């Protein structure tokens, strides 16, 4: 290890949502004087509007800081991480670029499901974990109990854990001191062939794809000819730099450093996250261990509300994809919705964020179909196919059975909600696995539940039945055969493909009834009566009727002024054009959205 490496600390912060991760990051940045008073703002590392508004972190943002401890200047590289289960993949990426992690736990809430999930990830990556107990200024803070939880559940020594309030700026120096003292410096060889891990990449219209890297061995500077080890592509580095937190060019990055490189890379796909960059002149023999590819768990169709905006939507998707490799999309066509995309997301939050970014950053109006999981369908001819779009399910006669993805769900909850949670899990076809008391008042409940149930309304139901006290984390646990059926929605006798769902046979009736009722309320009356039916195969299981319109009369045409009336009719025609046609029936975009959230 070089002497300079002794004074580098690379770390991230893991925490449950709302436990104060971004606030602590802000305080550390302030304390180290990295950002001037003028540039200061809340959630400094969260650059997207959505991140600030929702108070969440989605992308990982690195920042380099200097900290003087016992008269020696240390370089800190903090890599911010997302806290939500959907972004576990991104967390694992930041972990691999660090030697240590701060585990922030809310002193009034204790360990939550995602805290634990992220701690396990950190332990898997052999990170040194430094527990920090936050929000000690709250009246409900119970630091002793939380310390005990950390020791009992995670098995970490928390006796020296800094007791802080990130919001009030209390004891931040303790944290900084422990980072120096307890977290290990990076160990890499500056003289070995270059090995740098790409932990994130982003597209810059002027400089091409930018790689955020952690240099493990060797050095890299402008002019270095680099080789991408996964695909053999070579580039010449045009700039290397660090984040402070804005990008600042530096002459060289050496083993142990965190920074970025730009190399006029036109295609962001050439900067695969997890890939190893080495030097063309003196290549490394082995790449670093990369990441498991993030697999989408949730699928939905995204269509432009206005069919003519398809190309705009495609451009927007491609642009988003540059900075969010986890988003998968491919063109699909729906009889009812026209041209659009089938998209794969890491989870529901990821899906919501993509929708919101498409709408806000690209001013698109969208129609999203009900989220689905990917089913494994065994056909009678022995073939096994994956189906993530219910309307693509083969006819019943060709299906031998259907398997659905299941997850192991961990729910952390105050003990008084055990009953409510068990009831909910049973309703959602959950199978009880285990229950552990964390302490006398808090419990961890483990269930095996079909993922389809989780993405339907499990999270909302959990929050409402536990007044927001329970937290949820889950991980996939393979596939399971179940009695699943396709529920079709028929409008005036025609199947509307965009509304089809795959559901468990037992819940088909309830869902069918709820959907037909809801549709009936949002489909405007047409000149003819419109039957709205839910059916399994040819069997109708629910029916409602949109009554025929009785009156549609516009202004009288007196004094010969017919332009007014014509304009009104043209407007009416425009409105009708914006609607989707299924057979003879016009359906407004809202109808497709209205069935996404059904109150049970």
């Amino acid at each position, binding site marked *: 290890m070089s002497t300079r490496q002794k004074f580098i600390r690379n770390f991230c912060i893991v925490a449950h949502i709302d436990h104060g991760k971004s606030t602590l990051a802000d305080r550390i940045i302030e304390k180290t004087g990295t950002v001037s008073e003028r540039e200061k703002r809340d959630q400094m590392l969260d650059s997207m509007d959505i991140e600030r508004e929702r108070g969440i972190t989605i992308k990982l943002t690195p920042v380099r800081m200097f900290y003087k401890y016992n008269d020696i200047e240390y370089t800190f590289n903090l890599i911010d991480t997302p806290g939500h289960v959907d972004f576990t993949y991104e967390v694992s990426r930041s972990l691999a670029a660090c030697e240590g992690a701060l585990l922030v736990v809310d002193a009034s809430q204790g360990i939550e499901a995602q805290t634990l999930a992220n701690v396990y990830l950190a332990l898997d990556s052999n990170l040194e974990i430094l527990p920090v107990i936050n929000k000690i200024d709250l009246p409900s803070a119970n630091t002793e109990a939380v310390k005990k939880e950390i020791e009992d559940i995670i098995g970490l020594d928390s006796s020296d854990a800094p007791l802080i309030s990130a919001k009030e700026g209390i004891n931040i120096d303790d944290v900084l001191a422990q980072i120096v003292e307890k977290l290990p410096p990076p160990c890499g060889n500056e003289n070995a062939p270059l090995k740098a891990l790409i932990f994130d990449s982003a597209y810059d219209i002027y400089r091409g794809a930018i790689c955020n890297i952690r240099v493990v061995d060797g050095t890299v500077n402008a002019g270095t000819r680099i080789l991408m080890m996964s695909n053999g592509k070579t580039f010449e580095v045009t700039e290397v730099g660090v984040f402070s937190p804005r990008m600042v060019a530096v002459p060289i990055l050496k083993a142990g450093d965190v920074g970025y490189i730009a190399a006029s890379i036109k295609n962001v796909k050439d900067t695969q996250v997890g890939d190893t960059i080495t030097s063309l002149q003196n290549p490394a023999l082995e790449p670093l261990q990369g990441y498991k590819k993030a697999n989408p768990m949730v699928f939905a169709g995204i269509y432009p509300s206005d069919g003519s905006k398809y190309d705009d939507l495609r451009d927007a998707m491609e642009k988003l994809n540059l900075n969010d490799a986890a988003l998968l999309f491919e063109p699909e066509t729906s009889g009812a919705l026209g041209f659009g995309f089938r998209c794969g997301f890491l989870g529901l939050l990821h899906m919501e964020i993509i929708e919101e970014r498409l709408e806000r950053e690209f001013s698109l109006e969208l129609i999203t179909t009900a989220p689905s999981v990917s089913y494994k369908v065994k056909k009678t001819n022995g073939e096994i196919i994956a189906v993530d779009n219910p309307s693509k399910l083969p006819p019943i006669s060709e299906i031998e059975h259907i398997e659905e993805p299941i997850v192991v769900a961990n729910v952390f909850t105050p003990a008084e909600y055990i009953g409510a949670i068990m009831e909910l899990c049973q309703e959602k076809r959950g199978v009880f696995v285990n229950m552990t008391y964390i302490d006398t008042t808090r419990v961890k409940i483990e269930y095996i539940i079909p993922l389809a149930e989780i993405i339907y309304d499990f999270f909302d139901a959990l929050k409402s039945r536990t007044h927001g006290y329970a937290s949820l984390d889950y991980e996939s646990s393979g596939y399971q055969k179940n009695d699943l059926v396709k529920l079709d929605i028929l409008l005036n006798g025609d199947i509307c493909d965009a509304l089809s769902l795959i559901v468990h046979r037992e819940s088909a009736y309830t869902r069918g009834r709820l959907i037909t009722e809801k549709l009936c309320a949002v489909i405007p*009356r047409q*000149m*003819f009566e419109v039957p709205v039916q839910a059916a399994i195969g040819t069997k109708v299981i629910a029916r409602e009727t949109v009554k025929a*319109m*009785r*009156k*549609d*009369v*516009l*202004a*009288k*045409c*007196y*004094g*010969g*002024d*017919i*332009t007014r*009336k*014509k304009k*009104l*009719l*043209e407007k*009416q*025609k425009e409105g*009708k054009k914006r609607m989707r046609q299924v057979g*003879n029936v016009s359906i407004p975009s809202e109808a497709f959205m209205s069935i996404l959230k059904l109150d049970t």
Partner: protein
Amino acid sequence: MEREREQIAGLYIHIPFCRSKCYYCDFYSIQYDDALADKYIDALISEFFSVCEQFQNLYFDTVYLGGGTPSLLSHRLLSKLLGAIFNSNRLKENCEISIESNPAKGEFYKQCADLKINRLSIGIQSLSDSILNLIGRGHNAREAIQALEIAGKYFDNINADIIIGIPSQTKLDIENTLGLIMPFTKHISAYILKLSDESPMGKKARCSQMHLPSDDLVADMYELAYDKLSMYGFNRYEISNFSVANYFSRHNMKYWACWNTIGIGAAAHSFFNGVRFSNASDINRYMLGESFLTTYDKTLIPDKKELLFEEIMLGLRLESGLDVLSINKKFGIDFLSRFSSVIDRLKGIAEYKDGRYKILSSKMLLESAVAVEFLD
């Protein structure tokens, strides 16, 4: 030189004055003012003369004084205006001359009759005082009935306007109103209230300070009116217009059949030989000369497709529907094949029979929805 063929049109004269604005109205109108009215009548007369000058062979078989509130004009101004028109020798024999009025004092009707006006249209709207108050009409039910009684002494051909679909209106109100006005009238126009966002009531409705009756209730009230009027011999000939025998409005018929009409006055619209044009809606701009002669240059010539749609849109309002043969001839098309898919879609709502394509009587209230289908 061969004499050019005589041309016939309806003449519309717009009187944009109102004493106060009704809360459902967003048409152009201004406060009545004697001096202004004086100047306005002069402008109308000069516009009329310039029309006559431009079209030497143009004759009128209907004249319609609409507004605004034509009944606000003094006897002197009204006779000056009509005198000029009569003296032009451009009116055909048996010309229908209509005037719109609010329930007015007795002498007004006598004066109108003396001026050879032969059709009177009175804006009754409702005979419920609370409703009249709600919509900002300047009269009450008693005054309206009195006006009808007096008018009946001087006119045979009387129309009363009523409105269907006013907030708080009930079927009983429609029934009472019709029952009371039918004995005095030969023609009833029953308009369904359609608020534009800019009218005072429209604004209130938009921010939920006023609740409009449901479409179902409006349809019920309309159907009740239809039944009651039919029972008493008032036949519907247009979606909102009912008349005894052949007391239909010859002037308004021209609009629905897309015949020539010349409109004079501020905000007046004309349709003449396939050309649509309109005057400045602002009275001052109109009087400065932005009238017929100047606007005729800035005309809007609808293309054939537009004219065809207009003809369909207006014709569908008629009980007799569209004259398919005459449309085919006029536009050189085969209506039934050109619109075959629309016609197919509309089966059970509108049908073709005996040379006419019409909305079924029971579906007349779907008029706009049907018309939209014919719009490309």
